Protein backbone atom coordinates (compact mmCIF):
# COMPACT_ATOMS: atom_id res chain seq x y z
CA UNK A 1 0.00 0.00 0.00
CA UNK A 2 1.44 3.41 -0.94
CA UNK A 3 2.63 5.50 1.97
CA UNK A 4 4.28 8.79 2.78
CA UNK A 5 7.89 8.46 3.90
CA UNK A 6 10.01 10.96 5.82
CA UNK A 7 13.71 11.32 6.58
CA UNK A 8 15.39 11.58 8.94
CA UNK A 9 13.29 10.05 11.70
CA UNK A 10 15.20 12.08 14.29
CA UNK A 11 17.25 15.26 13.96
CA UNK A 12 19.19 17.04 16.68
CA UNK A 13 20.55 20.50 15.89
CA UNK A 14 22.00 23.54 17.58
CA UNK A 15 19.98 26.73 17.85
CA UNK A 16 20.60 28.95 14.83
CA UNK A 17 21.46 26.09 12.50
CA UNK A 18 19.55 25.28 9.32
CA UNK A 19 17.71 21.99 8.96
CA UNK A 20 16.04 20.35 6.01
CA UNK A 21 13.32 17.78 6.57
CA UNK A 22 12.54 15.49 3.66
CA UNK A 23 9.39 13.76 2.55
CA UNK A 24 8.38 11.50 -0.30
CA UNK A 25 4.60 11.87 -0.79
CA UNK A 26 2.39 9.17 -2.29
CA UNK A 27 3.33 9.04 -5.95
CA UNK A 28 0.08 10.08 -7.66
CA UNK A 29 -0.86 12.74 -5.12
CA UNK A 30 -0.93 16.39 -6.10
CA UNK A 31 -1.25 18.26 -2.79
CA UNK A 32 1.42 18.27 -0.13
CA UNK A 33 1.38 19.53 3.44
CA UNK A 34 3.55 20.06 6.49
CA UNK A 35 2.17 19.93 10.02
CA UNK A 36 3.91 20.00 13.35
CA UNK A 37 3.08 18.62 16.78
CA UNK A 38 4.80 20.02 19.85
CA UNK A 39 5.02 17.39 22.56
CA UNK A 40 1.67 17.01 24.32
CA UNK A 41 -0.10 19.46 22.02
CA UNK A 42 -2.36 19.20 19.01
CA UNK A 43 -1.25 18.71 15.43
CA UNK A 44 -0.95 22.15 13.78
CA UNK A 45 -1.03 23.07 10.09
CA UNK A 46 2.03 24.82 8.67
CA UNK A 47 1.71 24.95 4.89
CA UNK A 48 0.13 23.40 1.83
CA UNK A 49 1.75 23.16 -1.59
CA UNK A 50 0.26 22.57 -5.02
CA UNK A 51 1.53 22.97 -8.55
CA UNK A 52 4.95 24.06 -7.31
CA UNK A 53 3.76 26.89 -5.14
CA UNK A 54 2.44 27.51 -1.66
CA UNK A 55 -1.36 27.49 -1.65
CA UNK A 56 -1.92 28.22 2.05
CA UNK A 57 0.19 28.87 5.11
CA UNK A 58 -0.46 29.44 8.78
CA UNK A 59 0.84 32.16 11.05
CA UNK A 60 3.45 29.69 12.29
CA UNK A 61 4.99 29.49 8.82
CA UNK A 62 7.04 32.68 8.96
CA UNK A 63 10.08 33.78 6.96
CA UNK A 64 12.37 31.23 8.59
CA UNK A 65 10.43 28.40 6.93
CA UNK A 66 10.43 27.45 3.27
CA UNK A 67 9.21 24.50 1.23
CA UNK A 68 10.38 23.10 -2.04
CA UNK A 69 9.69 20.25 -4.42
CA UNK A 70 13.18 19.87 -5.88
CA UNK A 71 12.29 16.96 -8.12
CA UNK A 72 9.36 14.74 -9.05
CA UNK A 73 9.31 12.82 -5.82
CA UNK A 74 10.69 14.80 -2.87
CA UNK A 75 9.07 17.56 -0.83
CA UNK A 76 11.20 19.42 1.69
CA UNK A 77 10.73 21.76 4.63
CA UNK A 78 13.65 24.04 5.45
CA UNK A 79 14.02 25.89 8.72
CA UNK A 80 16.67 28.53 8.16
CA UNK A 81 17.71 29.45 11.69
CA UNK A 82 16.27 27.05 14.24
CA UNK A 83 14.95 28.22 17.60
CA UNK A 84 14.37 26.22 20.76
CA UNK A 85 10.61 26.48 20.20
CA UNK A 86 10.94 24.73 16.83
CA UNK A 87 11.47 21.46 18.70
CA UNK A 88 8.54 19.30 17.65
CA UNK A 89 7.46 16.36 15.55
CA UNK A 90 7.06 17.44 11.92
CA UNK A 91 4.63 15.51 9.74
CA UNK A 92 4.41 15.54 5.99
CA UNK A 93 1.08 14.66 4.38
CA UNK A 94 -0.29 14.34 0.89
CA UNK A 95 -3.69 14.12 -0.77
CA UNK A 96 -4.81 13.15 -4.23
CA UNK A 97 -6.81 16.29 -4.82
CA UNK A 98 -8.67 19.04 -2.96
CA UNK A 99 -12.08 19.52 -4.46
CA UNK A 100 -15.39 20.72 -3.11
CA UNK A 101 -15.48 17.90 -0.58
CA UNK A 102 -12.73 17.15 1.88
CA UNK A 103 -9.98 14.98 0.53
CA UNK A 104 -8.23 12.61 2.90
CA UNK A 105 -4.68 13.56 3.81
CA UNK A 106 -2.26 10.70 4.42
CA UNK A 107 0.48 11.34 6.93
CA UNK A 108 4.07 10.19 7.14
CA UNK A 109 5.72 8.78 10.27
CA UNK A 110 7.22 12.16 11.20
CA UNK A 111 10.63 13.67 11.92
CA UNK A 112 11.36 14.43 15.55
CA UNK A 113 13.36 17.66 15.65
CA UNK A 114 15.21 18.65 18.80
CA UNK A 115 16.84 22.08 18.94
CA UNK A 116 19.47 22.51 21.66
Amino acid at each position, binding site marked *: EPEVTQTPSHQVTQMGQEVILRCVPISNHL*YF*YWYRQILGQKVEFLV*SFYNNEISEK*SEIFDDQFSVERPDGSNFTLKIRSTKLEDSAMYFCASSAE*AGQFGETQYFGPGTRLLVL
Partner: protein
Amino acid sequence: EDQVTQSPEALRLQEGESSSLNCSYTVSGLRGLFWYRQDPGKGPEFLFTLYSAGEEKEKERLKATLTKKESFLHITAPKPEDSATYLCAVQARSTGNQFYFGTGTSLTVIP
Protein backbone atom coordinates in the same frame (compact mmCIF):
# COMPACT_ATOMS: atom_id res chain seq x y z
CA GLU B 1 -12.83 30.96 14.72
CA ASP B 2 -12.98 27.31 13.76
CA GLN B 3 -12.79 24.99 16.74
CA VAL B 4 -12.46 21.25 17.31
CA THR B 5 -12.90 19.80 20.80
CA GLN B 6 -12.47 16.16 21.73
CA SER B 7 -13.66 14.42 24.87
CA PRO B 8 -12.76 12.76 27.06
CA GLU B 9 -9.04 13.55 27.11
CA ALA B 10 -8.30 10.05 28.34
CA LEU B 11 -10.34 6.88 28.60
CA ARG B 12 -9.52 3.56 30.24
CA LEU B 13 -11.63 0.57 29.28
CA GLN B 14 -11.61 -3.06 30.20
CA GLU B 15 -11.23 -5.38 27.25
CA GLY B 16 -14.69 -5.90 25.78
CA GLU B 17 -16.16 -2.75 27.38
CA SER B 18 -17.71 -0.67 24.59
CA SER B 19 -17.66 3.14 24.65
CA SER B 20 -17.73 6.27 22.50
CA LEU B 21 -15.35 9.15 21.87
CA ASN B 22 -16.68 12.59 21.02
CA CYS B 23 -15.51 15.27 18.60
CA SER B 24 -17.48 18.50 18.57
CA TYR B 25 -16.76 21.13 15.97
CA THR B 26 -17.68 24.66 15.02
CA VAL B 27 -16.56 25.47 11.50
CA SER B 28 -17.88 27.63 8.70
CA GLY B 29 -19.05 25.07 6.19
CA LEU B 30 -17.77 21.58 6.83
CA ARG B 31 -15.98 19.97 3.89
CA GLY B 32 -15.05 16.84 5.75
CA LEU B 33 -14.43 15.34 9.19
CA PHE B 34 -11.59 12.87 9.55
CA TRP B 35 -10.69 10.35 12.23
CA TYR B 36 -7.12 9.19 12.72
CA ARG B 37 -5.37 6.85 15.09
CA GLN B 38 -1.97 7.89 16.43
CA ASP B 39 0.39 5.54 18.24
CA PRO B 40 3.14 7.05 20.44
CA GLY B 41 5.90 8.62 18.35
CA LYS B 42 4.15 7.83 15.08
CA GLY B 43 2.19 9.71 12.44
CA PRO B 44 -1.61 9.87 12.30
CA GLU B 45 -3.05 6.78 10.61
CA PHE B 46 -6.22 7.39 8.61
CA LEU B 47 -9.41 5.70 9.79
CA PHE B 48 -12.52 7.42 8.37
CA THR B 49 -13.79 10.38 6.39
CA LEU B 50 -17.32 11.71 6.95
CA TYR B 51 -18.87 14.42 4.79
CA SER B 52 -22.45 15.06 5.84
CA ALA B 53 -24.77 14.73 8.83
CA GLY B 54 -26.24 11.25 9.15
CA GLU B 55 -23.29 9.54 7.51
CA GLU B 56 -21.78 6.48 9.19
CA LYS B 57 -18.63 4.48 8.45
CA GLU B 58 -17.48 1.18 9.99
CA LYS B 59 -14.22 -0.71 10.17
CA GLU B 60 -13.79 -3.75 12.38
CA ARG B 61 -14.60 -2.66 15.95
CA LEU B 62 -14.86 1.04 15.07
CA LYS B 63 -17.86 2.99 13.84
CA ALA B 64 -17.87 6.72 13.13
CA THR B 65 -21.00 8.85 12.96
CA LEU B 66 -21.59 12.50 12.13
CA THR B 67 -24.18 15.11 13.09
CA LYS B 68 -24.23 18.82 12.28
CA LYS B 69 -22.26 19.64 15.42
CA GLU B 70 -20.32 16.55 16.42
CA SER B 71 -18.95 13.17 15.51
CA PHE B 72 -18.71 10.03 17.58
CA LEU B 73 -16.24 7.20 17.31
CA HIS B 74 -17.86 4.12 18.78
CA ILE B 75 -15.58 1.29 19.88
CA THR B 76 -17.30 -2.05 20.27
CA ALA B 77 -15.70 -4.76 22.42
CA PRO B 78 -12.25 -3.16 22.32
CA LYS B 79 -9.02 -5.12 22.52
CA PRO B 80 -5.67 -4.04 24.01
CA GLU B 81 -4.34 -3.40 20.50
CA ASP B 82 -6.93 -0.63 20.12
CA SER B 83 -4.99 1.39 22.70
CA ALA B 84 -3.85 4.61 20.99
CA THR B 85 -4.70 8.29 20.73
CA TYR B 86 -7.66 8.96 18.45
CA LEU B 87 -7.57 12.27 16.62
CA CYS B 88 -10.40 14.14 14.97
CA ALA B 89 -9.71 16.71 12.25
CA VAL B 90 -12.01 18.96 10.25
CA GLN B 91 -11.64 20.74 6.96
CA ALA B 92 -13.73 23.87 6.41
CA ARG B 93 -14.84 25.64 3.24
CA SER B 94 -13.70 28.98 4.65
CA THR B 95 -10.10 27.92 5.26
CA GLY B 96 -9.06 25.88 2.26
CA ASN B 97 -7.30 22.55 2.55
CA GLN B 98 -5.81 22.78 6.02
CA PHE B 99 -6.95 20.39 8.70
CA TYR B 100 -7.85 21.58 12.19
CA PHE B 101 -7.10 18.88 14.71
CA GLY B 102 -8.50 18.30 18.16
CA THR B 103 -6.21 17.41 21.04
CA GLY B 104 -7.21 13.76 20.83
CA THR B 105 -8.53 11.10 23.18
CA SER B 106 -5.96 8.75 24.67
CA LEU B 107 -7.54 5.30 24.87
CA THR B 108 -6.13 2.53 27.04
CA VAL B 109 -7.72 -0.91 26.86
CA ILE B 110 -6.82 -3.12 29.80
CA PRO B 111 -6.70 -6.90 29.27
